[in-house]
Structures are given as C-alpha cells and as structure tokens.
C-alpha cells in the first residue's frame, strides 16, 4: 500500500482548497493505490492541477476580450472624451517621439556600412590617440584592427573663380577600404593617394545634387582645398554622411599633415576574431610605445580609449551636449506627466459619472478585480490611440525640424535624422504603456473602491478632491516650464540689447580667400585696388578691410617685454579707416599712418590695462612673437581703441590688439562696406566687381553685420523657442485640465446651483462661485509651482548668459499669465452654470 507524498497533498489542499481539492486528492490517491505506487507520477499530476489553476490564462485572460470590447463600446458612446484624451496624449507623446529620435540619432546609430558592429574608435580620454606624423607606424603596428585616420575641418572649396564653405573630412587613403564604402559614382581613393601630385577627392551625394546639379560629368572636375588642387574621382553613396554621424561631410580628401599639432581621430575595423578587449590590450601597448618615443607630449600621457562606434560617441563630446539634452529630456518628461494627469482626470470624472452604474454592478456581484481590469483596458485603448496619433505628430515635427535645423550654424545639426526606427517605436510603446498604467490606476482604484452608500447617493467627495489635487500638480508643473522659458526669453532680450561696441547697421562684409595664390607683394595691392574701386560705387559711403569679422577671432603671439615665451592674444589685422567705419573710437594716441619703419600696434582698453596698468601705453615697445623671432625689433604701441565684443555678445572684456594690414602678412581678409541704405542692395554690385577686378582673390561668403550678430545668438534663440513651444504645450494641456475639473464640478452641482438660483442667488454669485473654484486650484498650483521653479531654475544658470535665474519679472509674469489662463478656462463653465434652469436642475436625474 503506497501513501501519496504528504507535501504534494497539502499543497493541493492549500492552493486549490475546498471540496475541489478534496475530490482531486481522492482521485489521485485512488489511482495511486490502483497503480501500486509512483511518487514521481503523483507529483506530476498534482503539479499539472496547480499549473492549470495558476496559469496566466485562467487568472486573467478569460474575459479580456470582453474588457476591451466594453472599453471600445464606452469610447464609441462618448467619442468626445476619448478624442480629448487621445489628443492630449498624442501631443505629449509626439514631443517625446521627436526628442527620442533626436537622442537616437545622436547616441545610438551605427554607421551605415557593412558589419558596422565591428567598427571602433580609438582615442584617448579627452584627446587623440596619435599624431598624423605617427599615424602610418601606428596603422602598421595594429594587428587586431585596420585603422584609418580622419580629421574634420571646415574650409572653402574653390571651383574656378568662386568658392563656398564646406565641411570636409581629411582622411588617410585606406578610409574607404576600412569602412567598406561604396561610391554612387566613380571610385574612392586608391592606397597611397595622399602623396599623389594631384590627389583625387570624393564629394558627398548631397553636394553633388546641390552644387553640381547631379551632372554625371562632375567626375574629373578640378577643385582647390587647403591650397592644393584635387580632382573629383567619385560621389559617395547617399546614406553615408561621415565617419561620425550626425556630422555631415561635403567632401573627403586623402591627406596627411606634417605639423606636430595636427592629430587625427582613428576609426578602425576589427579584424576577424578580434574582440573589443583584445583591441584595448593592443592599443594600450602601442600607446605605451608612443609615450616612450615622445615623453614631452602631454596628450599622449592620457589613457587610451577604445569604444564601439555607436552614435556621436566620444569622451569629450558627451559632456558638451549633456546639459542641453538633459534639460530637453526633463522638459518633455514633464509634458508627458502633465498629459497623463490630464487623462487620469478625464477618466476620474468619467468614473464619477459612472458611479451609479458601478455601484449597481458591484451590488450585483461584480468583483473589484473585474472593474479594475475594465478601467485598465479603457486606459490601454486610449493610450494605443494616443500612441498612433503621437507617432504621426512626432514624425511631422521631426520632418519639420529636419528641414529647419540645417539653417543653424553648426555642422552637428545638419545631418540629424528624425526618422522613426524600431528603437524609437519601442521606446514610445514603453512610454505609452507606462502612461496607460499611470493614468488608469487612480480611476481604476476609484472604480473598484467599495462603499456603495455614498455612490448610490451620488456624491463622492474623495474623487473630486483627488481631481483637484491633480489639477494643482499640473498647474505647478506647467508654471515651472513657463518660468523657465520666460527666463530664456528674458536672457535673449538682455543679450540682444548688449552693445557690441561697434556699428552694425547698413554694413555688410564679403569674405575673400586669397590663400590660393598668395603673393606677399601683389596680394596686398590687389586688396588696395579693390577697396578703392568699391568706394567709388555710388551709394557706398565707405569701405574697409579686416582680418576677422564678428564672431570669429584670430590670435597672435605677443608680449610687453622681450621674452622667450610670448602669450597668445586675440588679434585683428585691419585697414587704417577700420576704426572710423566701425565707429570704434581711438581713446588715446592715434590710428595707423603711412610712415612705417616700425610696426604699429593699437591695443584695446583691456589689453592696455592688463599689460600697462595705470600707465599710458602709447609709445611703449611691444614684441610680436618671441624675442628670437623678432630679432629684438619691437613694434610700437601707437594708440588705444575702445573695447568691443569680438566673439559673443555676452563675453567679458577681452584683451585684443590691432595691426595694420599693410604691415601684417595676413592674406585672408574681409571687405566691410558701409552703404547709404539697405546693405543687401549693394551686395551684388560689390560681388560682381570683386569677380571682375579681384584678380586671384576669391569670394566665398557674404552677409550683413546685423545678421552675423543675430546668428551668434542662435543657441539661446533655439533654446528659448524649443522650451517656449514645449512650455506652451504644457500650459495648453494644464488649461484643459483646469477646464475639465471646473466643468465637471458644475455638472455635478447642477442641482445645487438650481436650488441656489431658485432661492434667489444672482447669476453673478453663481459665476463667482464657479470661477472661485478654478482660481483656488490655480492659486495653489501657482504657489507650489513658484516654489518648484525656484528650486528648478538653478539648473538653467548655464543657459542664461550670466543673468540671475531668480529674475522677479520672469516669475511674476508666469504667475500672472496662469491667473489669466485660469479665468479663461473657468469662464465657459461659469457662464453655463448661470444658464441652469432651476426647474430642470431640480428634476435633474
């Protein structure tokens, strides 16, 4: 006689319970006795019972179809509320879609090349792995990878007599072989191409389409870059932008640099069998060898870093963009939260309306879990709808940004792609599901809560209190966003009002590149001749020449004493009438004059104060370069010019000196023209003249000084407009929330209002009663929001151009704006309340 296992039997009894368990245990015992034993068999059978009983299907799935079809039916019956909820979600999810696809394109994409997971970058902690000079030996030494050298630079490409600025990747000739690149037309470089007398170059598909009209005869065309002639040998495939997306290169040239300072980035393909660890180990060995060969080099002392090429990765680049991206992520997270609260509020007010129905169902035996599940199903349906709409909305925004961003003066933003790939879709699905749970839980609990009595009577204080609290949270969160965008707008206004220290109106510049065929004797004469002819154009009041135009600055070595180590100081090389034309007064001494012999130098006030504090620097010697280079021949300070802004409007006073362009070797000058009217009218005549009479000079860029200043503010403008747009969205959502709560309270108090009206309350009293409710919520929201902002704005400090984040005007105007919004949002329900007919109201329900 065999006994059933005790544990299995007690498990059955405990987990199944009741007479069911008894019957099952009896069956099993009977069979066990008939079989004559088999504990293993018994366990198997017992577990099969438990598995069936506790399977997910049995516990939740039966009826899940019913849950969803009921949810859909409820939504169909009242599509207005569902649409509102979905739109709220769609707006917030749309913003998050755009943001995430932005982050995705910045951080998570691999190169569009074969076996992209084998591509790595080799660099150092905030530095480069090796110099160009040592690259060839490094490349040959690596056994685990094939390495290519890349250097991104910005230069003018000269085609015939005109030129344009372009982003160029200077690369080692094995670049295309390492990345396994294909050309849309022609070929990539052959090995050793960097030492050809006229090397080949590859232009991007985009450049081919925009600059060369997609003509097939572009192959073989001759161009000049970096003072060298190249011929076009190929057009890259359209999906490949650069070795470091989203940076977009317009062209690739095989180069090698001999100067010590030039350092390439290394992009490499792992050899078959190599792992990231083996590459790291080898890089450490080679790094040690490089360090031993050149112990003086500080950069080589930094530890070597090998990382997979995913997105815009680099030890230094991450930290550069992190603050702005963190801010964006936080802001769109807040918007999503506000939208969730909105939908939760909507569902809660629906729960209030359905109270009686639910109470009746509960009293008829509907379980809490069942009611809970139904509300959750409704939430999931709403979230799914919001997700689809949000993705469409996000896609549209992304496309708009893709179209707008290239206008920014920043190569990084030109190649950003906002397409929706599986990572973005997955992220969104996750965000949507999280939202659904977040906003369904409060109403689900409200619906499944017990207590039939108050529900049957038709008033639930707890429910409406909860909704008010949510509304307060929304107002507070959106107020914080409003304060933040207000601060950015104020900072923008402030920085725009800063006096640049020179005249900007009715002036434009034309950049020349005289580098290609520079001759120390003829080129300055060429500029002089051109300057004279420009001044003769009718309507041109004056014209001058300058090496640098705001916001670019150059540097030169100089020192107040004859020293072996001069310091690097900002410098500009200008024509004598520059100060007059730019309205930069000479505050002491004089300007440049034609007596020569000695090199004339004009300091700005800050440099004068720095090098000759408390003295008049005019007449003092100044050394341009080290003592050796100047052969003991100093220049002479002839004057001091007033300070101006050179690189950005919010910079601190910066030391700078001016040289006379005829006494300087500069060749890369810009023409500044002061006109009698709208400067744009004179651009074409001046450019035509330059093309006709400019000899070897080539123009490549022209714009007004005003727009050069406006361009320098792009960063704060973009931050202000992005944050402003998101802030507006947040306010819109929160206003919908306040409206919803007030309108719902009016609907619930219809009876009470009717009684009041019947007893003689004036419409104004009733209106005020409703309005006061909206205002009370808002006032609490503003109070909490201001506190929250005071805490949050400290993170904005870095974006405010030195303005204090505790700007009373930004705080006060955000609060006031919200009061106005609250009055507007409560206005309509308040008016509706006064239209309540006492008779109808008393018969209500």
């Amino acid at each position, binding site marked *: 006689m065999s006994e*059933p296992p005790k544990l299995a039997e007690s498990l059955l009894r405990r987990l199944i319970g009741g*007479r*069911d368990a*008894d*019957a*099952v*245990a*009896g*069956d*099993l*015992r*009977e*069979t066990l*006795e*008939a079989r004559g034993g088999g504990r293993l068999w018994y366990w*198997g*059978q*017992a*577990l*099969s*019972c*438990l*598995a*069936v*009983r506790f399977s997910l299907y*049995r516990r939740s799935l039966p009826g899940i179809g019913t849950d969803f079809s009921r949810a859909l039916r409820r939504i169909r019956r009242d599509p207005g509320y569902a649409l509102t909820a979905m739109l709220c979600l769609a707006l917030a999810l749309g913003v998050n879609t755009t943001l995430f696809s932005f982050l995705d394109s910045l951080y998570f994409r691999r190169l569009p090349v074969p076996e992209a997971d084998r591509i790595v970058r080799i660099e150092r902690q905030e530095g480069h792995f090796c110099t160009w000079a040592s690259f060839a030996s490094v490349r040959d030494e690596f056994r685990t990878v094939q390495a290519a050298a890349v250097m991104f630079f910005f230069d003018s490409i000269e085609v015939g007599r005109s030129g344009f600025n372009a982003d160029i990747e200077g690369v080692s000739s094995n670049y295309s072989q390492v990345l396994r690149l294909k050309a849309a037309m022609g070929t990539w470089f052959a090995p050793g191409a960097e030492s050809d007398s006229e090397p080949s170059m590859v232009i991007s598909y985009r450049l081919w389409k925009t600059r060369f009209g997609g003509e097939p005869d572009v192959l073989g065309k001759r161009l000049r870059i970096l003072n060298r002639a190249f011929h076009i040998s190929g057009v890259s495939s359209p999906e490949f932008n650069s070795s470091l997306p989203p940076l977009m290169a317009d062209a690739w040239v095989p180069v090698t640099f001999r100067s010590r300072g030039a350092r390439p980035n290394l992009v490499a393909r792992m050899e078959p069998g190599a792992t990231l660890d083996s590459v790291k180990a080898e890089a450490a060995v080679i790094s040690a060898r490089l360090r031993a060969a050149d112990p003086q080099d500080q950069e080589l002392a930094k530890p070597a870093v090998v990382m997979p090429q995913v997105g815009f990765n680099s030890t230094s680049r991450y930290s550069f963009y992190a603050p702005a991206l963190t801010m964006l992520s936080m802001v769109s997270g807040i918007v999503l939260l506000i939208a969730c609260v909105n939908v939760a509020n909507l569902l809660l007010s629906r729960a209030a309306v359905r109270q009686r129905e639910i109470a009746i169902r509960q009293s008829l035996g509907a379980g809490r879990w069942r009611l809970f599940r139904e509300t959750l199903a409704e939430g999931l349906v709403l979230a799914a709808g919001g997700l689809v709409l949000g993705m469409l909305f996000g896609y549209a925004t992304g496309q708009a940004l893709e179209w707008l961003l290239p206008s920014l003066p920043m190569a990084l933003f030109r190649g950003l792609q906002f397409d929706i790939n599986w990572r973005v879709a997955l992220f969104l699905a996750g965000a949507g599901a999280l939202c659904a749970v977040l906003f369904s839980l409060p109403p689900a609990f409200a619906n499944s809560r017990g207590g039939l009595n108050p529900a049957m009577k038709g008033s639930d204080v707890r429910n409406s209190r909860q909704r008010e609290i949510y509304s307060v949270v929304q107002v507070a969160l959106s107020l914080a966003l409003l304060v933040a965008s207000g601060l950015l707008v104020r900072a923008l206004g402030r920085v725009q009002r800063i006096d640049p220290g020179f005249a900007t109106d009715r002036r434009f510049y034309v950049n020349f590149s005289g580098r290609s065929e520079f001759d120390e004797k003829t080129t300055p004469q060429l500029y002089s001749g051109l300057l004279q002819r420009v001044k003769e154009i009718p309507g041109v009041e004056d014209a001058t020449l300058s090496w640098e135009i705001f916001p670019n600055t150059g540097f030169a070595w100089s020192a107040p004493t004859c020293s072996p180590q001069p310091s690097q100081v900002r410098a500009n090389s200008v024509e004598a009438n520059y100060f007059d034309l730019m309205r930069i007064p000479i505050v002491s001494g004089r300007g440049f004059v034609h007596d020569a012999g000695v090199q004339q130098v004009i300091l700005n006030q800050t440099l004068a104060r720095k090098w000759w504090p408390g003295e008049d620097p005019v007449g003092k010697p100044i050394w341009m370069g080290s003592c050796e280079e100047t052969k003991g021949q100093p220049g002479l300070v002839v004057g001091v010019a007033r300070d101006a802004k050179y690189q950005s409007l919010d910079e601190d006073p910066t030391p700078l000196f001016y040289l006379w362009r005829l006494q300087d070797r500069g060749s890369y000058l810009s023409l500044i023209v002061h006109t009698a009217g709208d400067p744009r009218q004179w651009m074409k005549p001046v450019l035509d003249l330059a093309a006709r009479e400019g000899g070897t000079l080539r123009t490549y860029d022209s714009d007004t000084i005003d727009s050069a200043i406006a361009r320098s503010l792009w960063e704060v403008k973009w931050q202000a407009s992005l944050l402003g747009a998101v802030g507006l969205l947040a306010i819109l959502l929160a206003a919908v929330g306040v409206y919803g709560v007030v309108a719902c309270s009016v609907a619930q108090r219809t009876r009470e209002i009717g009684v009041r009206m019947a007893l003689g309350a004036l419409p104004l009293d009733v209106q005020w009663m409703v309005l006061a409710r909206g205002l009370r919520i808002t006032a609490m929201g503003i109070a909490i929001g201001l506190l929250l902002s005071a805490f949050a704005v400290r993170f904005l400090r870095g974006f405010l151009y030195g303005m204090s984040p505790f700007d009373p005007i930004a705080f006060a105007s955000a609060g006031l704006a919200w009061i106005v919004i609250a009055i507007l949002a409560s206005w309509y329900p308040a008016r509706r309340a006064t239209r309540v007919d006492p008779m109808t109201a008393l018969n209500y329900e």
Partner: protein
Amino acid sequence: MPAIYLGEFEQIVLLAVLRLGEKAYGVPIRAEIENRAGRKVTVGALYATLDRLEAKGLVHSWFADATAQRGGRSKRYFKLLPAGVEALSGSKKVFDRMWEGLHV
C-alpha cells in the same frame, strides 16, 4: 448548426461522461479516455476541461459524501445536461455531413 462549438478534447470528455453514466467521476473518466482514445490525460487538464464545460452549462457536478475508501476523500461526480447532449449531437452531425460520400 450547433450553437456551441466543442473542441476535440471537450467532445472526448463529454462522451466519456456520457458512457460512464452514474459512475462518472475523475478516476473512471480518465481511465475511459485512456482505454478508448488511447490518450494519457493529466488530472489538471481533465478538471480544467470539466470546469469549463460546467461553466458553459453542458455538464453538472456534485460532491458525493465521503466514504472510507481512498483516504476518506469525497468524489466529484459529473453528468451531462441536455445542452451537453445537444452540443455533442450537433458536433456529430457536422462531422457526419462533412464525411458524407467520402471514402478514405
């Protein structure tokens, strides 16, 4: 056409209950299915199906009083309700019609 569709295993279980008549409880039902259909059935699967059939209103079950046999545990007996008989014959008709004139 039958109003209620029966799965194959449901039909087998219903037929076993029908064949056993008054003796239909867990152990004999499983034995019947094993002997006639040649299928091993776990207790869990059998009771899950029977519970489902009961929920659909096709069978009825009751607990008999405990006896001294099988450790003093009670038996749960099953019997077919009219709806169950109807569903079975409906299913049979469907198959009959589908097989009509076919020789395999």
